[in-house]
């Protein structure tokens, strides 16, 4: 990683030590102001979320240049559709990361469709390679909490969730990769996520 000196700024007024929350009303407020055309508010929103957004994109698409493109597109989309963000329906970070993930997955699938299948080989041989990015991953309490929750999943649940979310595979592909019936893959993806939801106290 070349930008180790880059420190993620804490958003305006955020309580110390709680910059990560998707949860934070500050983020929702920044988006609300963005929707009114406030570029400064959007910059603050970017600063508060970009490590997660870029890290997620990087994890899914793997190629740093692609990850940057994906992240940039996602933020542009977020800016454009900030008027459509509804805090009653979810957190601002969750909303953004949904956009990032969708774009990252689209990218990884289209790269695969366009180029040969060498990417598939890479992904298949190292489907759950945490270490590639985690050295640079930011240590945070929230991250530790997430890891602890993931560690309580059954092996199949964990792999199904990770192949889906970080691998960008479809549930059909996950079933093939894990050599389980499609119905099983579908169920493991869902009950793995539900378990994480309950452990991490996510409520709508």
């Amino acid at each position, binding site marked *: 990683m070349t*930008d180790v000196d880059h420190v993620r700024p804490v958003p305006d007024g955020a309580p110390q030590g709680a910059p990560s929350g998707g949860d934070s009303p500050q983020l929702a407020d920044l988006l609300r102001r*963005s*929707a009114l055309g406030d570029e400064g508010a*959007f*910059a603050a929103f*970017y600063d508060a979320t*970009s*490590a*997660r957004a*870029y*890290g997620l994109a*990087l*994890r899914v698409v793997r190629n740093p240049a692609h990850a*940057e493109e994906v*992240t*940039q597109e996602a933020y*542009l989309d977020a*800016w*454009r*559709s*900030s*008027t*459509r963000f509804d805090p009653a*329906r*979810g957190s601002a970070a*969750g909303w953004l990361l*949904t956009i990032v*993930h969708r774009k990252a997955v*689209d990218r990884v*699938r*289209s790269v695969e*469709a*366009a180029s040969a299948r060498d990417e598939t080989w890479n992904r298949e041989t190292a489907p759950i390679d945490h270490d590639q*990015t985690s050295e640079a*991953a*930011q240590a*945070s309490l929230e*991250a530790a*909490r*997430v*890891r602890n929750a*993931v560690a309580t999943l059954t092996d199949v649940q964990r792999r199904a*969730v990770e192949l889906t*979310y970080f691998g*960008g*595979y*479809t*549930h*059909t592909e*996950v079933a093939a990769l894990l050599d389980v019936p*499609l119905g099983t893959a*579908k169920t493991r993806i*869902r009950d793995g*996520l*539900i378990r*994480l*939801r309950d452990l991490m106290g*996510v*409520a*709508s």
Partner: protein
Amino acid sequence: MSDLHKLTGAYAMDALDELERARFERHLAQCDDCRAEVAELRETAALLSESVAVPPPASLRESVLSGISQVRPLAPEVATIPVPAPARPEQPAGRRAWAPFLVAAALAIFVGLGAMIVAPWADDDEVPRLTAAEQVLQAPDAEEVFLDLGESGRATVVRSKSQDKAVITTEDMVVAPEGKDYELWFMSPEEEFVAAGLMPDAADQTVVLDGSAAEAIAVGITVEPEGGSKQPTTDPIALFDLTEAT
């Protein structure tokens, strides 16, 4: 619990292909439980990104901020905008997504063709001139492939080698997702996709594909970002195997 309800997790993590997603979204439009669950599972999935956070290069910030200064946020949604099309009865999901499309059946049915035959510019005392589409559809060597896309509609590709053109007709085709277009492709004998134009957003239509059709071995439809792509960026939602055409 129907099969569709179990797709909340896969949907929340973008693990459905385009057609499954379209079906599930129709289901979502009428299932409060699934909507609530999807919202929670998306939040949950987003938390997973905590464990992979990496600060982006500083240059990305500049790119993003200069990018946003050139577009305004979209107009807000107002109440008069209709929500996703009325859902139809559920269909079990989960069959292998592409399988139905790869099987070419030859059951072409053309509806509404008669209405198009009188071209507005035709002289009164002349046999009505045929539109480009009609010329293909009525060519003596016209061959066709029909695909039933289930809830997504039905489509037929007709190709005339002598005319070097192909036409696609659709019935009840679901509209492309917001911000996306259906793009048409010819597949060359080398199995390369060659762009053949965009499909207008209409359920029932007849479109002449751009480009040379005589050599094509298949016609595909993909879902592309608005305005189309030079190369397909997604797997085809439908593939018409012209080698099976009758």
